[in-house]
């Protein structure tokens, strides 16, 4: 019994460590700031940036400003369109590839898997320079299509490796039964295998959406004003300004950060069961 209590206390401490920063972010979005309050001077004394007035009275003004005056809904639209486009293409190329990896042995299989994994492990900067040059020439800089294409680098490995696991979870006997009834391989994929993995497919799409929603590096270099994404705005600010070297408004960054993590958090907890699989390249089940 004593051991259970010790366990609960330690877990409560771990939970506090997670909740404390997150609640601080929400509070500062509501203009609650303990720092200046304690110092009693209206500004904090560490860090190189001016820190505004503190207080303990919640004030939703920053959230309201983000949602009505500034372009937050537009950013959500941008992020969503880019993710939808990119995930759509990834599914189109990833579903058959995942099916082939799960179902067949063929020479070059390990090589193909390595190709997919190179996308997963490559430094974004190895791709940013050529993409930056090519997009300038092709007119894809700061367009939905351009961003969707570069996010294939993230989404193709996610889709292929996650779905591969779901396809191999289907018992072999089902594939064999379908095969002996004379269905073509393409029909088996479409009519037998895909309907069986619908929950897994949904989890994969959500997982890829959260990954795309959270991505920052490619967005910083390859999007301009018109397709700026939510996670880029968390850094650069939410107004119409493009670059980061303006006066940083921490209340705004925190309010925006809160709004940015909300959908990711809700969606991720929905697919909690599949999270390990997604994050471990489909090695855990």
């Amino acid at each position, binding site marked *: 019994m004593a051991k259970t209590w010790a366990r609960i206390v330690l877990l409560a401490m771990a939970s506090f460590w997670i909740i404390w920063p997150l609640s601080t972010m929400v509070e500062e979005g509501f203009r609650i700031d303990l720092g200046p309050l304690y110092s009693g001077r209206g500004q904090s004394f560490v860090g190189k940036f001016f820190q505004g007035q503190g207080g303990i009275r919640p004030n939703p003004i920053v959230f309201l400003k983000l949602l009505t005056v500034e372009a937050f809904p537009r950013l959500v639209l941008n992020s969503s369109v880019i993710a939808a486009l990119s995930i759509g293409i990834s599914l189109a190329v990833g579903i058959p590839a995942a099916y082939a990896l799960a179902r067949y042995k063929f020479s070059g299989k390990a090589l193909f898997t390595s190709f997919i994994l190179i996308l997963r492990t490559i430094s974004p900067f190895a791709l940013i320079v050529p993409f930056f040059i090519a997009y300038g020439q092709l007119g894809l800089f700061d367009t939905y299509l351009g961003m969707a294409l570069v996010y294939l680098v993230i989404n193709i490995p996610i889709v292929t490796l996650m779905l591969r696991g779901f396809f191999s979870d289907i018992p072999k006997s089902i594939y064999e039964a379908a095969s002996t009834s004379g269905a073509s391989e393409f029909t088996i994929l479409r009519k037998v295998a895909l309907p069986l993995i619908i929950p897994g497919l949904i989890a994969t799409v959500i997982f890829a959406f959260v990954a795309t929603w959270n991505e920052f590096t490619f967005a910083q*270099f390859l999007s301009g004003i018109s397709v700026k994404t939510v996670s880029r705005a968390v850094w650069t600010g939410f107004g119409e300004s493009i670059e980061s070297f303006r006066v940083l408004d921490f209340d705004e960054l925190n309010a925006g950060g809160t709004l940015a993590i909300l959908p990711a958090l809700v969606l991720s907890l929905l697919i909690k069961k599949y999270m390990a699989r997604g994050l471990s390249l489909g090695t855990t089940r």
Partner: protein
Amino acid sequence: MSRIPYLFIVPAVIAVFGIGFLPIAHSIYLSLTSFSVLSPEPQFVGIQNYVMLLRDPIFYNAAGVTTIWVVGTVVIEFVVGLFLALLMFGEFKGRRVFENILLAPLAISPIVMGVLFSPNVLLDDLNTLLFYGLGTGLFIDVNQPFVYYGMMILADAFVWAPLLMLVMLAVMQNIPKENFEAANVYGASSFQTFRRVTFPAIIYSPVLATILVLRVIDSFRAYEIPFTWSFWIGQERLGSPIDTFSVLMFKLFFLRTDLPLSYVATIAMVLLVISISVALLITRLATKSWEGS
């Protein structure tokens, strides 16, 4: 029959070629040329950029900083993940609540963590509490390397320690029940059970090996948190003690006026060698877990 798998992977191969291999080939070409605002027409210069890089102190500086960052994050995440996994193992009241809380960080974007763990959001609360609230007259100075490396590593561990927990839990749940029962019969203490049964199972698991390799390479490429911190502590010059390879490439991109694209490509190509070796390593490590079902 034999042609079918290739038909299925053709679209993916084309996509990987277009968004991966073509840009990499272009990068290799750029790294062998001089290409910047100063010389807008790429001119072939052979391996000159690589020679320059090997003589450049900022490169070795970045290698050192990246090593500290990778070792720090992965070790902390492993230890915290193991600790959390042991706490979460088994059935007890309130497990689901704790699970939801502990998994929440995995949904959070690293750039948000960079802002959230900044001196102006978390540290100033802590500092005023320390300085005025408790009246100690002490405060944590973010300009100390120990403090900023610590905060950066904590911010990264905040997001990724739960992943290690998740994977270790999955491994522990696969340990046969008999092993624990046998330990019980022999009167092993819970620490002995951990040392003889649980820990070896975790350490020798190919799944954990895959995840650790993945964490090392992800930490190696990590950009957002060191990037934000280079602003928080005002380290905007090249070769600062916070320049991981990613931050170094950002600075060459944005802070140098001549935009030395071929030099950035050169660094990226050196890193590419590491990425490819890791990809091959993961393929070898993970094949057993993928096929074994």
